[in-house]
Every structure is written in structure tokens, then in C-alpha cells.
């Protein structure tokens, strides 16, 4: 939570006060304290096994199971008391103010859920056979109220403690989570229902499926992290072939995600475009190193080899159970809006959306990175180049989105190496493989490339193949073919 503003403190104080008042008003008669204790322990177990959500130090736990069971068994005040056990949750992370707020938030949610249960016609007490199915409707109402109060209070505190400049409205709470929470809430009625048969043994039995679900969610998160790390490591391995493009895939991926989020793509599509960005250049492995690192003009054959790389990339990733969109993006990321790109020469809307997004991020990173024939260009210059070629080479919508995102969030390009120090780059990236590179004449070949900066020749070679006459360095269009390869 870091440093809190005054309003945030006021808000947190108000939530805590409201919860305290709700509990203090009572009544405490008719609350069975053994049930409070048993459910409290269940809640501590749930809270202690909370899973961290991806963003903004949010965590999710199955607390609502215990609170909602208490709503039926011991009423609103009892439920609020059970929710107070949140404070005892054994987990690292939350600071004392956070814990206090969480406790108050759950107590208030439980109390209001309890009130809703009574309002919808539910009866407090251990349910018997004839309580069903009449009890289900009020309970469902209580569960919905619990989720709504919980999420609203959380949204409030997230909004008040958001980092300055962060876009409002994105606080990492999504609809899916809301549904999950409701699903878990259904365990509450089960605990209440079984209390007359199994007594305090009920929570033990209920905990098992809950913990299996938690385990599966944790495993999923771990696997996803592993997956991401592995894909990125393998992409870096691919980049070793051409050290001028180090980190390129990572940055294109980042840029594409910026664009995707800016235009409000769905989360799954953003995820897919992230991987598409990382993998968009794997196909260049099929291009001979001598062509990739060539500093003279390219022959037609060599240019044809380069033009093949998106298809080769597709060949590699086709077998991954990926979104089709990502595949289309990888295959067409060198198409141009005016139809003069490759491999298919698609134009305008014929080009898949992912490919148009990737093309912008790809070109931008190529311009702001060092190349063997020129140094990196500053961001403003690259931005104006993007603007200049919007409509002929790039989709203007995505250029605009990208520029907006860069102006707001900034752009982290490759670590700039001062001119002439590129030799150190060679050795650094070949840790452990240094001798090998020397044996293969790699270091020498690349060392020469740094000194040689006749990019014009390069530009000409490609311009000819493209049927275009523009061949100067300031023109990213024809150059792009090799720059962002």
C-alpha cells in the first residue's frame, strides 16, 4: 500500500468504524460460540492459503465460505464476528493497516450479507431437512450481497491508493474472479446444511475440495510463470544469431501489449499478442547467418531468404495450441497497409489485426535500436517516422494508440551502448561460448560490422527488391525489411 493519502486513511478508518459499530450494536443473544470458533478456524485456514493475484498486491482467499455459513447458522452479527478471524490469518505480506482494512471489509460484507439473508426471508439457525430448498433463494441473495459489498469496498481502496498517473478503472478485479467467489460461496450453504449431521467436523470435509482447487490455481500460476520464462529464454537463444537484435522480441512483445491495452483488447487477446510479439521472429533462424549479418547490398536470392522468415516462423509455432490470431500475426507482421509488404502482399483490412499491431511495435523497436550500419534513433524521431508512414506502411489507429501509450507510460528501449564499444557486447553475450565464437570467426566478422556503417547500400538492395525508389536512411519504409528482421 505504500504511502497513503489522507483521503485513503479516512476511507479505511470509516470502513473499520462501520464494521465496529455493526458488531457492537449486537444482539449477541443466541450466538453459539462453539460455531463461531469452528467457523473462525475454517476462515483462518482459508485466509492463510490466500493466492496472490497478478497485479497490485491483491490476494484472493476463500473466506466467503466461512462467513456465508455463519450467516445461516448464527446470523449477521455472528457472521461479522467470524469474519474478524481474518486478522489471525497466517500469511506474509499484508501490513497492519492492510490487515485491519481486510478484516473490517470482510466483517462488513458478512454483516450486510446476514442482513440480506434475513431480508429475503431466511431463518437463522441450524437448518433441517424441511428448510430446503426454501433456504437457497435467500442464501443466494446473501452470497451476491457479500460479493458486491466486498468488491465495492476493495475497489474503493484500490482507487484511492492507486499509483499517480495510472489509468483509472483498471484495478485488477475482473468478472471471472467475481464468479469464482460466488462459486465458492456455495460451499457456505453446504457447511450450514451438514452441521446438523456432521457437526464441527463439516469444515474439515469441506476444506479438502477447497484446498485442491487452491492447489490447482497455484499450480496454474506457477506453470504460467514457467511457461513465460521458458518462451522468453528460447526467444533470446534465437536472438543470439544476430546480436543487434538482442532483446528485440521482448520489446516488441511489450510494445504490442501497450497497443493492445490502449485499444481495449480483451485480456485473452492481450495475452496472445504478448506471445505473438515474443515469437514473431523465430523464423529468422531459417535465414543463414551470413545473410542476417551482411553489410553489403543483398542479392535477390538473399532477399528472398529474408522474405521467407515469417513463413518459417509460422512453421515452428503452428504446432503450439495457440490462438489462431497469434499465428496470423506472426505470419503477416511484414505486410504493409499499402499492400507492398511480404509474404502475401495483403493490404489494409486484409491484414490480420495482430499483424498490424506487431508491425508498428516491430518497426518502432528497430528504429530505436542500434544496427550494424547506424546507431539508435531517439524516441521522438522514431515517433515522427511512425506518424509519417501511418497509412502507407502502418495502420494509423495503432500508430496513434502506440504514440499515446508511449507519451503516457514512456518507452524503455535497449540499454544504449556508446558507439565503438560494441566489441564488449560481443563478448558479454557469448559468456561461456567465447572461444567457440572465435574459433568460428564470429567475433571478427561482427567486429567489422560495427565499424562499417554504409546502411545506404543496404537500403538500396531492399528498395530494388521492393520495386521502390526511396532508398535514403531517413526512410523507414524500405529499410524496415532488414532493420526489424
Amino acid at each position: 500500500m505504500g504511502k497513503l493519502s489522507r483521503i485513503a486513511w479516512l476511507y479505511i478508518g470509516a470502513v473499520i468504524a462501520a464494521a465496529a459499530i455493526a458488531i457492537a450494536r449486537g444482539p449477541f443473544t443466541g450466538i453459539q460460540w462453539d460455531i463461531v470458533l469452528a467457523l473462525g478456524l475454517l476462515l483462518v485456514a482459508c485466509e492463510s492459503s490466500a493466492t496472490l493475484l497478478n497485479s497490485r498486491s491483491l490476494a484472493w482467499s476463500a473466506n466467503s465460505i466461512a462467513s456465508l455459513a455463519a450467516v445461516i447458522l448464527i446470523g449477521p452479527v455472528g457472521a461479522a464476528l467470524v469474519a474478524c478471524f481474518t486478522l489471525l490469518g497466517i500469511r506474509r505480506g499484508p501490513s497492519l493497516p492492510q490487515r485491519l482494512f481486510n478484516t473490517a471489509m470482510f466483517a462488513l460484507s458478512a454483516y450486510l450479507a446476514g442482513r440480506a439473508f434475513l431480508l429475503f426471508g431466511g431463518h437463522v439457525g441450524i437448518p433441517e431437512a424441511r428448510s430446503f430448498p426454501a433456504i437457497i433463494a435467500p442464501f443466494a441473495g446473501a452470497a451476491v450481497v457479500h460479493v458486491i459489498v466486498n468488491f465495492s469496498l476493495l475497489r474503493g481502496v484500490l482507487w484511492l491508493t492507486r499509483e499517480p498517473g495510472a489509468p483509472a478503472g483498471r484495478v485488477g478485479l475482473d468478472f471471472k474472479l467475481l464468479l469464482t467467489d460466488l462459486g465458492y460461496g456455495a460451499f457456505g450453504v453446504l457447511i450450514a446444511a451438514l452441521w446438523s449431521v456432521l457437526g464441527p467436523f463439516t469444515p474439515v470435509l469441506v476444506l479438502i475440495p477447497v484446498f485442491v482447487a487452491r492447489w490447482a490455481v497455484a499450480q496454474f500460476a506457477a506453470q504460467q510463470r514457467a511457461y513465460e520464462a521458458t518462451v522468453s529464454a528460447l526467444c533470446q537463444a534465437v536472438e543470439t544469431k544476430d546480436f543487434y537484435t538482442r532483446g528485440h522480441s521482448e520489446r516488441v512483445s511489450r510494445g504490442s501489449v501497450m497497443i493492445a491495452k490502449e485499444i481495449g483488447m480483451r485480456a485473452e487477446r492481450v495475452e496472445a499478442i504478448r506471445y505473438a510479439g515474443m515469437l514473431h521472429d523465430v523464423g529468422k533462424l531459417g535465414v543463414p547467418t551470413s545473410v542476417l549479418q551482411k553489410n553489403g547490398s543483398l542479392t535477390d536470392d538473399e532477399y528472398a531468404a529474408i522474405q521467407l522468415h515469417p513463413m518459417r516462423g509460422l512453421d515452428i509455432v503452428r504446432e503450439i495450441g495457440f490462438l489462431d490470431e497469434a499465428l496470423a500475426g506472426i505470419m503477416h507482421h511484414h505486410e504493409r497497409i499499402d499492400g507492398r509488404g511480404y509474404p502475401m502482399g495483403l493490404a489494409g483490412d486484409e491484414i490480420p489485426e495482430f499483424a498490424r499491431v506487431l508491425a508498428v511495435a516491430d518497426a518502432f523497436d528497430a528504429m530505436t535500436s542500434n544496427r550494424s550500419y547506424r546507431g539508435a534513433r531517439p524516441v521522438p524521431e522514431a515517433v515522427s517516422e511512425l506518424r509519417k508512414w501511418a497509412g502507407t506502411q502502418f495502420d494509423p489507429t495503432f500508430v496513434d494508440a502506440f504514440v499515446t501509450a508511449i507519451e503516457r507510460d514512456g518507452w524503455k528501449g535497449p540499454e544504449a551502448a556508446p558507439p565503438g564499444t560494441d566489441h564488449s557486447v560481443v563478448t558479454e553475450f557469448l559468456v561461456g561460448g567465447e572461444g567457440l565464437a572465435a574459433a568460428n570467426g564470429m567475433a571478427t566478422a561482427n567486429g567489422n560490422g560495427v565499424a562499417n556503417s554504409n546502411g545506404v547500400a543496404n537500403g538500396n538492395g531492399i528498395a530494388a527488391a521492393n520495386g521502390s525508389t526511396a532508398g535514403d536512411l531517413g526512410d523507414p519504409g524500405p529499410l524496415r525489411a532488414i532493420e526489424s528482421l
Partner: protein
Amino acid sequence: MTARRYEQRGFPRHTLDSGQSLLVIFAGLLVIASVAQTAVVGVRDMHAAVAFGALIAFGELLRLNLPGDREAAPIATAGALAYALLLRIGDNPARHSPQQVIAVTAIGMIIGALPHLAVGRPARLSAMSARLIAVACVAWVFRPLANALMIGSQWWSELPVMLSLVIVAWLVEAVIAALIRTDALRARFGVALLDELRVQLPVGAAVGASALLIAFAAEVMGLAAVAVFAAPLLVTQVALRRYTGIRATYLQTVRALARVTEIGGYVEPGHSARVSRLAVAIGRELGMPEPALLELEYAALMHDIGQLSLRDPIPGGATVLVVREEQRRIAEYGAEVIQQARVLDSVADIVRRQSDPCRPADRGQEPPLSSRIIRAANAFDDLVGSSVEPSRAAAAVERLRLDTASEYDPQVVEALSRLLGRRSLFGP
């Protein structure tokens, strides 16, 4: 065509062999007998039968694949076990026979499998039979108890019996599944059973607990328990599905990306896939447990990734023909690449040690078994390539054998030779 055929070696094919057909026939006869008996005697408590049958069908519809290509239907199994363990519905004692449990479960399973068939996903009969037999065991033991004695009315007397029966069901299913795997993949039974128990433990625990909960809840809530309970178990199922989904994608991705060395012309097409299949088959032959086999598969798929550091590919990609120092550098570089992923450190270690001879002269410690397996599998594939010629394979093994004393691990080479002797592994 020959290359394609060769690539199929070592793959578990979903055809039924004698052991599995026996299982399916047994389950089929059981179902026919139970349905017939139930039809003659008449269904007791039609409402409960329909409700549980519907839950089972729903669960079967939502079956999922656990790691290692295992089929499971948690919701269906929980529903069927709950039906077998049912004592009372509301205030009325449940008096259905074990045959009725089997009949309802079977019909539910078949109805749930129909949509899968309709979209072209074949039913895995052996897995369905295993699930059915596990439920049948519980029903046979518990139904007579429940019907004749109406054992206790207190949870502390009923629960231990039910709990142990649920565990029995879990064990029965695991033993049958392990037998199937032993038969199909030529794994060792002990290892296969442990693998099965480990993979099934979390799911089995959730299923067992859910079954008990549904059975007890039906006493209080009546049949509403079935509906109410479908929701939370669904949440568990969704979490499991997401987990198994990403696991499968992970393996798929590594398999695909390992091919970059082929596209780059560093190795022969299909090399990584062949080496990994052969390595896994050898590992299984040597009784490696599944988590180790998975690491071995990753390492074998990526064993040549280090070649990306070469400016120009080695002719034919055959690392077996390159000097030791060069091999070691390639392995070292590959390990570094893998280590960057931070989650595959043991895989990186396997890749790093793959070029070490099995009896190192200078360094004391011998490389891990997985490294030794990859070393032999890689050498074998470099020598044989995509050829299916038996004489060539035999000659390659002979050559590995000659080098066995210091270069290759004798037990690995022997396992490889046993695999080659078994024609079934190499397809028709």
C-alpha cells in the same frame, strides 16, 4: 513415408490390446447384468436415480485430461460414489441395490460420452471401465450394509466406513490405470502405480470428500444437495482444467520451439523429437518415475539448443562426430539458455552434462542418468537418422556397445538394445 512411420515409435497408441479388451469386456458384462437385474426388479426411488444419473452425465461431459494423458471425470466419479454411499434422502432411507448404482452410473456415463462422440472425440473405454469398476466395488460393499443394517445414525460411526470405502475406490482405479499403463507403455508396474497415485492424489481427495459431502448433504437437503453441490465442484474442476491446460501448452511449446535448431539447419529434421521419444522410452525401460521422465523429455528436446551459438551448422548436425571440447561448449551454452528460464534448472543441468562420458577420467562425479540417456539416444540418432533399416539400427547399437566401457552407460545401451528388439515400438 518411412520417416513418418519412424516418428511414431514409442508413442502410446490408443488401441485396445488384450489386457484392456478384457477389462472393457468385464465392465460391459457387469453393466449388462446390472441393467437387466435392475429392469427386472424395478428401479427404487426413480427421482434419486434420475438426479444422480444427470449429475454423472454432466460430469462425464466435463471430463478432463490430467498430466500424462490420463482421463478423469471428477464430478461424475463424485456423483457416482455419493450415490453408492447414500444412506437417506431427506427422512427416507435410500434402499437402492448395488446393481442399480452400476446401472445408473453406466447410463449416466454413456449419456455424458455421447456429445464427445458426436464431435469426434472417441470414448476411452478402458478409462471409463476403470471408473465404473471402482464405483462398483464401493456399491457392492456398502449397499448391503446400508440396506440391511442401516448402520449407525451418528456421523462418527458412518464416516470411517465411508471414508475407507472412498479410499478403496481411489486405490482400485489407480491399480487398474497402472495396469493399463504397464501394458501399453511397458512401464514397470510399481513405478506406474506410484505415478498414478501421485497424479491422482489431489483429484482423488477432492472427489472423495465431495462424494461424502453429497451423500451426507442429501440427508438434510434431499436431492437439492446434488444441484447445490454441482456449483462448487465445478469451480474445482475449472481450476484443474486451467492447470492441466497450461501444462499441456507448455510441453507443446517446448516441443515446437525445440525445432528452431532444425529450421536453422543445425540438425536434421525430426532429430529433437526422435531423440526425446527414444530417451523417454529408455528412461521408462529403466524405471524412471514420471516427473523425472518429464524433465528428461524437456532436456532431450532442447539438448541441441546450444548449437544456436555456432555461426555455421555442423554438417548434418551430428554432434557425435565433433570433438569433445566442442561438444562440451555446445552443451554448456545450451544449459545457459535453459537456465535463463529459471524454472528448469535441473533440465539445464541434464543438458550441461550430456557431453560428459559416463566414466569421467578427470572429474570424479558421473553425469546424471538423464544425461547419460540423452547422450546415448543422441549418438544413436546421429548414426541412424530417420532410417528404419533394422540392420542399420543394430550396427549403431553395436558401435555404442563398443564404446560402452567409457563413453556410454552400459545399462542405458542395454535398455536401448532391448527396446530395439521389441518390434512393437517401431510400428509395423
